[in-house]
Each structure stands twice: as structure tokens, then as C-alpha cells.
């Protein structure tokens, strides 16, 4: 009798568990029979949208207020390094939104994860709204996977007042000038450094390397090439290592409490990254810093050049599981390619638009308080944004980021060669691609 009871209880338990797991692997519910953005019976089509920049909820409200046929339900999915994986999991479990914001660096990994819909046929109308450089970040092998939303053309923000106190009147045009300025700064105030270059900044190093024509990931035909360890990158690494060894730059993390304190104490004097840096610096600066900072061009390796790469920036995609593609595209078009949409996220979130019309809008904005006094701030920004080199990303950028952080971190701690750290990273990234089954040319 016990055996039967026991077996019965066991079977019941197992059956319950299996039923519960099996039953609920639901397929994506086909909720809208018409499938497209057409309202089936006068009801607006509701699409779901994941994003994260501050103020996006207001932008979405503006869209909803001005559109009858499509309504957007916004979820703050939080940005950061995990956002791509979250989206992938959501797609795989059938819970994905229709539209999502994604960073350019993660787009290829999302594509190979099967999360992104091919929208090549849907972007004909807005082809001219963006520069070829912008489209390059969302187009692979002729297939368009997303619509650029904001971009981060490489630029530099610096504490002009502190620079002037150290005897520097012009921002550095080349990296050699940058180094000379760093020496002047250190001579003036031993506690100050010109900037911080921690191992977590893969985006910066990629953008700086891109100036030399180095393409960390590139493809030809059906094969990838990985060049994170090429000579140009190694030379760049050696340059920065020299500066670190001489105490001219810090290698501590950006935007920690310590970094912010130094910034406000005029001991952290510049940030070479992208146009969005102004907003971030303004967020951590206290009142004493307002008006002291200026926007400048990203330093070049070769004097006279002006084209720069990108660091950061994001695009809007339609997820592969979405069944409301037309409605999604209507929203994306409004958001990313029209003046109204660009104005909305420019005002609410402070992102620098990718669309030409958006960039033109910025020139009518007042200079940000932290750069008060630089009247041509937005004109300079627009100039910078118009002269860009593409930065290409592969399917394993997230992996590369952690490997670089580890390898370069070790090199910094142990005082070994930074160049070797980049080479090692390149090898690991290459191996990772090969292990996954991709063709790797080199």
C-alpha cells in the first residue's frame, strides 16, 4: 500500500511539474488578426516599446497624443550591459516588445541571436533622413536592421578654465598636443590629470583606433576579420601606456564618486569620448564648474585630419517576433526621422540625434550651462557630426569588452605591455568567433 501511495504521490508531483512547464511554453499570441498597422475596426494598434533614456516616457506621451492609429506602451527596460541579453531572452520566451532601443555595439549580437527583423524594405522613405555614416551602423551586407536614433560622434569636452590656468589656451588638435598639455597640467598641479583611461573603455579605444583606419571588426563576403591587435592599435596602446606610466593620465574608473569629486576639484580636466559627454559631465558637476567647460574636436593622430569615429549611440529596431511591423515602423519613423520626434527626445532626453533634421534642430538650442560662453557649441557639434568614419562592430562585442577589461586591467596592475593586452584580446575575440562557427579570415 505504501508503495502505491508513494508512487502515486511521486507521479503526481512530477506530472504537475512537467505539465506546468510544458503547457506554458506559449507561442507568441497572435493578438492582432490584421497583423499590420491597419486598425481592424477603428481601434488603434498598440505596440510595446522598450527603451531607457531619461524622459522617454514623455516622448512616448507626445506620440500617443498626436496619433490615433497607433498607441505606444512604454517600458523602461534599463540600459546598461545587460539590456541586450534581456531582449534576447525576451524574444526567445515570446515576451519581447515590438520595438526596442539597442546600442550599436550590441546590434550584431542581437541579429545573430535572432532578435532583429530585417526592415530593408521598410526604410525607403527615410533613406535620406540619415547620413550614410549613420546607416552604416545598422546595415550589414546590404540588409538594414535598425533605424539610427542617436549618435555619438567622437569629441572632447575639457575644463577650459583649468587648462587656461595651466597655460593652455587652445584645445589639443593632435594626441601629441594632448600629451604636451598633460605635462603642462601636471607641472601646474601635481594632483591633477588630464583625463582617465580605464580598461573598461572599449568604446573609447575602438574609436581612437578607428582614426588610424583600424577596423576592429570587419567583414568581406561571408568572413569576419578581427583586428583588435593590429599594429595601429598597438601603437595607440603604447602611447597611452606611456602617458599612464608618466602619471599624466589616471586609469581609474570613470564616474565613480572619486572621479566626480576630482572633476569638481579641477583635478580631472577632460574627457575624450563623444558629443554626449557634455550632458554627463553636467550631471555630475556642481555649480562651481558651470561655464568652465568647452566642447572641442577629438584629438587626431595626424595633424590636419578632421574625420572622427563614433562612440556609443543607439538605434531603434523592430523585434523579430513582432507582428505589428507597420505600426512599429510608423512609431520609429516619427521618433527617429521627423523633426517632431527628434525635438521630443532632444528636449526630454538630451540625446544627439542621428537624423540630419534633428541635428539642424540642435543649432537653435541654447548652449548647455556647463559650456556657457561657448556660443557656437551646437554649430561645432553639427560640424563634428558631419565628418565621420564608420566604426564597425561584430557579434561578440560584449565578450570583447570583458576580455579587454581583464587583460588591460592585468597589464595596468602588473605594469606589463598594454599593446600585448590588446593583442591577447584580439586573439581571444577571434577564437570566440571561430568557436561559434563563424568564418574568420585572419
Amino acid at each position: 500500500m505504501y508503495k502505491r501511495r508513494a508512487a502515486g504521490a511521486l507521479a503526481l508531483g512530477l506530472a504537475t511539474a512537467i505539465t506546468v512547464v510544458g503547457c506554458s511554453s506559449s507561442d507568441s499570441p497572435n493578438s492582432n488578426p490584421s497583423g499590420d498597422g491597419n486598425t481592424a475596426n477603428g481601434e488603434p494598434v498598440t505596440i510595446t516599446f522598450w527603451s531607457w533614456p531619461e524622459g522617454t516616457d514623455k516622448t512616448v506621451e507626445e506620440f500617443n497624443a498626436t496619433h490615433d492609429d497607433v498607441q505606444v506602451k512604454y517600458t523602461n527596460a534599463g540600459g546598461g550591459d545587460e539590456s541586450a541579453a534581456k531582449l534576447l531572452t525576451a524574444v526567445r520566451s515570446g515576451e519581447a516588445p515590438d520595438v526596442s532601443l539597442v546600442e550599436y555595439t550590441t546590434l550584431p549580437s542581437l541579429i545573430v541571436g535572432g532578435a532583429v527583423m530585417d526592415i530593408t524594405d521598410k526604410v525607403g522613405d527615410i533613406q535620406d533622413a540619415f547620413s550614410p555614416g549613420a546607416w552604416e551602423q545598422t546595415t550589414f551586407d546590404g540588409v538594414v536592421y535598425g533605424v539610427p536614433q542617436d549618435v555619438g560622434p567622437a569629441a572632447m569636452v575639457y575644463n577650459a578654465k583649468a587648462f587656461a590656468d595651466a597655460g593652455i589656451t587652445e584645445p589639443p588638435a593632435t594626441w601629441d598636443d594632448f600629451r604636451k598639455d598633460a605635462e603642462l597640467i601636471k607641472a601646474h598641479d601635481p594632483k591633477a590629470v588630464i583625463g582617465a583611461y580605464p580598461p573598461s573603455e572599449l568604446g573609447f579605444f575602438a574609436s581612437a583606433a578607428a582614426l588610424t583606419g583600424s577596423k576592429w571588426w570587419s567583414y568581406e563576403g561571408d568572413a569576419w576579420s578581427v583586428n583588435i591587435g593590429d599594429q595601429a592599435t598597438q601603437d595607440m596602446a603604447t602611447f597611452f601606456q606611456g602617458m599612464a606610466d608618466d602619471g599624466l593620465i589616471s586609469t581609474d574608473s570613470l564616474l565613480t564618486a572619486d572621479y566626480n569629486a576630482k572633476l569638481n576639484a579641477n583635478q580631472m580636466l577632460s574627457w575624450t569620448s563623444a558629443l554626449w559627454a557634455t550632458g554627463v559631465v553636467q550631471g555630475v558637476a556642481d555649480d562651481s564648474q558651470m561655464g568652465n567647460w568647452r566642447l572641442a574636436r577629438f584629438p587626431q593622430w595626424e595633424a590636419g585630419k578632421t574625420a572622427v569615429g563614433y562612440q556609443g549611440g543607439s538605434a531603434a529596431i523592430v523585434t523579430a517576433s513582432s507582428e505589428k511591423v507597420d505600426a512599429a515602423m510608423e512609431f520609429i519613423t516619427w521618433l527617429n526621422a521627423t523633426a517632431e520626434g527628434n525635438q521630443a527626445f532632444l528636449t526630454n532626453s538630451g540625446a544627439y540625434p542621428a537624423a540630419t533634421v534633428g541635428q539642424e534642430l540642435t543649432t537653435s538650442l541654447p548652449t548647455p550651462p556647463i559650456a556657457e560662453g561657448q556660443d557656437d557649441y551646437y554649430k561645432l557639434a553639427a560640424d563634428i557630426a558631419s565628418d565621420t568614419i564608420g566604426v564597425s562592430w561584430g557579434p561578440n562585442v560584449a565578450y570583447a569588452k570583458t576580455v579587454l577589461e581583464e587583460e588591460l586591467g592585468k597589464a595596468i596592475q602588473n605594469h606589463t605591455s598594454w599593446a600585448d593586452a590588446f593583442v591577447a584580446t584580439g586573439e581571444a575575440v577571434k577564437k570566440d568567433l571561430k568557436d561559434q562557427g563563424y568564418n574568420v579570415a585572419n
Partner: protein
Amino acid sequence: MTTTSYPRSRGRAPFRPGGTLILIAGAIYCLVPVAWVFIAASKAPNELFSTFTFAPGSGLISNIKDLFAYQDGQYWYWVGNSALYSGVGAVLSTLVSAMAGYSLAKYTYRLRGVLFYSFLVGILIPGITLAVPQYLLMSKLGLAGSQLSVLLPVIISPFGIYLSYVFARSAVPSETMEAARLDGASEFKIFRSIGMPLMVPGLITVFLLTFVGIWNNFLLPFIMLSDQDKYPLTLGLYTLLAKGSGEPALYSLAITGAALSVIPLVALVMVLQRYWRVDLVSGAVKG
């Protein structure tokens, strides 16, 4: 705390200053950060990095107001969520553990050995091994991101079951159960009216350990939840801290939130520790 009473000293004990000082030093070491968090919570954001660490500031009220106002009162969602996950979770877990422990201790049946050892092995499994596949399971069930996805997994506590088993064995006499059976009581009635009341002191221990364990569990909600309104307090404070890198004013909110959260937790633990049976825990090892 149960102690065997026996003469600890004869007559007047010699005062030992050395030992006393060490103990007091230890106590101070343990209290310093707690004192700090209250002092720091009183500093306005611009005072946080500029005034001496232990000098009280002037911003306590404004910090508290800002904390409650953050994201339209998200702090209260966090408090409520923690009460749900830890409070309700620990109650349910203690109940489930009590039933299971009692069953293992006071009855014999075919599967008992298997179940007992299974639970024992379960104690050794590190939480992380489970958090990720639990997340996948919840995704399949469509529950990922819901409060249930954090509440359900914390209810099962093999350690709690084991403690309940040990306590049920020692605290509930089989003779009393027999007598009740002879009087015609059903097994459930026996459990409810005899077993549970006798197990209460041990169950308080189980509840306390489970409550603190769930409150301290960072990884599970971190993985399961994406909607910040569903975060428990610890996760919410971590988010404030992480965002603080771009918005330093959030550091003060995180500190204030931490200070406020410490009060009820310490109060709870202090109250319950008078009743709990730590010898139960060490006795569990002695077997």
C-alpha cells in the same frame, strides 16, 4: 536562549579589564558603520563629500523627503516588495518547512529516506546554480519579472526543513501523539494542535534565519526582475548606488534609504533573538 544553569563563578569574580576592552572594541567596530549610516543620512548631498565623516549634517529631513519623492515614491514599492518577499516568503517557507520537517521526523514511510537525503543535498547546492535556470523556468511559465517569480523560489528552504526536522524530533513526543490518536484525533489535528505549538520556539529560529536569508538574497531578484517597481529594498538601494555615478545626488538617497531600512530589520532581529534557539542550529550538526 536556553542555557544549562551551573555555577559560573564562586563568590566575587575578578574584573578582567583586558578581555572587557577587547569585547567593547569589538562592539564599537560593529557599531561604527551603523552609526555612520545614520550620520551620513543626515548630510545633504553637497555635504556628503565635503564635511568630516562623523559630523552630522543638516539635510536629514530633505533627504528623507527626496527619498520618498524619488520616482513618485518608488521607495515605498521597494519596502512593500521586501515585506512581501521576506515577510510573506519567510512565513510561507516556515510553514512548508514545519510541515515537511514534522512529516520526516514523526512518521515512517517508504519514501522518507529518499526525500530526507534529497533535501540534505539541496542544502549544499549554491544559490547561483539555481537562479539562472529558475529564471528560464519562470520565463517559460510567463512569470519572469513578476513578484511571484521571486516569491515562489524562496519558499523552498532545505535548511529550514532540516532544522524543523531536528526540532520536531526533539520537541514533539510521540507518546502525546499516540494518546491523541487513541482519542480519535486525525493526523492533521494532531499536527495543528500538538505538533505546531510545541515546535514554535524552533520555528521562530527557522523564520528568523529564513527572513534574513531572503532579505539578503540579491541575486535572485536581480536576475528575475526588470521592472524597478518590483524590486526589493536591497536591489533598489543598489540601483540608486549604481546610478549615483551619473547623478551623485542619488548617493545621499541610497544612504538615507539604507539607514531607514536598517531600523526595522535590526529591531526585528533584536526582538526575535531573545526567543530563538541557536542551540538548535548547532545541535543540528551534532545530530
